[in-house]
């Protein structure tokens, strides 16, 4: 409605301008151009807004309203565990290895396999890397020598809604495709697992200990 009214006015004005233009064309050819240009600049309504195709590319008004993202700590989502007795709750598939590329590729494979089999993958994350120093004690020597530094990488794929009849098949497939050097652990998700991902805050703990 609102858009229609100025359109009508524009059209009328446009028509008037054109008539004026037609009239003035006869009179002074040199002044015409200035007149025409001035008319376009001075007019309050722009002619393209009256075109029927105005706003043809608009789409943002069609999208669902985006909630502003809050930078907050992730709250746990826990499903009903075999409350139905036929479905598992959140299950963690943990893959550990010394070789990072291998474990990442395997985690990718497991994720895609679950996608293929329409199992909902809730989260897929990496645990912090653990570094171990291997100290070598020489025979007839008391000094421990640094032999190697080993880094252990762990990737976790969290799935939910695994039915109990399908779980053995999935487990078998993952087990048969396990590469060399990768430890596989499949367990149910607990709060302790969630807490493992977060960094310990020693100052906070100290203060808490002082307080209580």
């Amino acid at each position, binding site marked *: 409605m609102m858009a229609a009214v100025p359109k009508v006015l524009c059209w009328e004005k446009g028509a008037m301008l054109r008539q004026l233009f037609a009239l003035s064309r006869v009179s002074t050819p040199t002044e015409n151009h200035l007149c025409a240009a001035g008319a376009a600049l001075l007019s309050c309504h722009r002619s393209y807004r009256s075109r029927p195709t105005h706003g043809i590319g608009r789409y943002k008004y069609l999208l669902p309203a985006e909630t502003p993202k809050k930078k907050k700590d992730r709250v746990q989502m826990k499903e009903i565990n075999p409350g139905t007795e036929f479905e598992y709750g959140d299950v963690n598939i943990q893959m550990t290895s010394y070789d990072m590329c291998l474990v990442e590729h395997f985690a990718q494979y497991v994720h895609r396999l679950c996608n293929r089999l329409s199992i909902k993958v809730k989260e897929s994350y990496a645990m912090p890397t653990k570094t171990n120093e291997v100290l070598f004690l020489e025979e007839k020597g008391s000094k421990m020598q640094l032999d190697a530094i080993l880094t252990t990488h762990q990737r976790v794929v969290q799935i939910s809604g695994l039915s*109990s*009849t399908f*779980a*053995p*098949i999935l487990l*078998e*497939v993952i*087990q048969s*495709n396990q590469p060399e050097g990768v430890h596989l652990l499949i367990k149910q998700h607990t709060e302790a697992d969630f807490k493992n991902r977060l960094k310990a805050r020693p100052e906070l703990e100290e203060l808490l200990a002082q307080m209580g």
Partner: protein
Amino acid sequence: MAGHCGTRVMAAPLGQRVAGPARWVCSAAAAAAAARRPWRLFGAMCLLRLPRITQPLEKEEEEMMALMGQIELEKSHYSDHEIRKLEEEERLKRRKESLYDDDDEVTGRTVIMAQDLEDKWEQKFLRFKPAPRITDADKKNIRTSLNRKLDSNLMLLVKQKIGNQELWLLPQAEWQPGETLRSTAERAMATFLGDHIQAKILGNAPYGIYKYKFPRAIRTEDNVGAKVFFFKAFLQSTDFTQTELKADYLWVTKNELGDYLKPEYLKKVDRFLLDL
């Protein structure tokens, strides 16, 4: 004998392309009311020894692996050891060109150079002898040993007497009323291999079913035939003193099953065996 599944067997989900468990609906309540089905039930156990080493790669897989390795190498950053090695090489070069220029570097800082470490590791690696992939049992084709075919699944086959025939089958036992089919299968395994078997059954649902009717001679109203439900278990510990009660047993791979099993039986068993 009323044919009703154990209370824990439930409807299979839809759309599995990996292995197809048979579909059936458990109706514990309906069992009492339904007519007595004249089928005898058996629970059979398919005991699998998982592969211990990986299978050899195909040509395309090897090429892919080489390519991925190269990509990863080129994308990666230098590790601490490599940086140290490069620095030391540079230092050596500088020292050779400008003779004994900087004295503070000589003061026993690098007693062990990175290159020496590498040489030491290389020597250690050469001394390491991995176990052979093709074992003795493979060469002599001893089918009763577990050390054979380390890269594929091995299954247990037992010779059992059915009717008046001695057949090679997966170990099975008859179902007694009051127990679940899974425990029947476990009992079957225990009778053939002893109690201290560390095998893990992953789920409560069977993997397959084989149905057969008795030959007309023995068939009666109440005893039309038998249904065998298969369960799968994975062997956890590979070395156990094989106290075999029945002497004839074999550990075979999926390909070799055809030598021993009857064709109909083999068809049903093949359906749920996953051999990657």
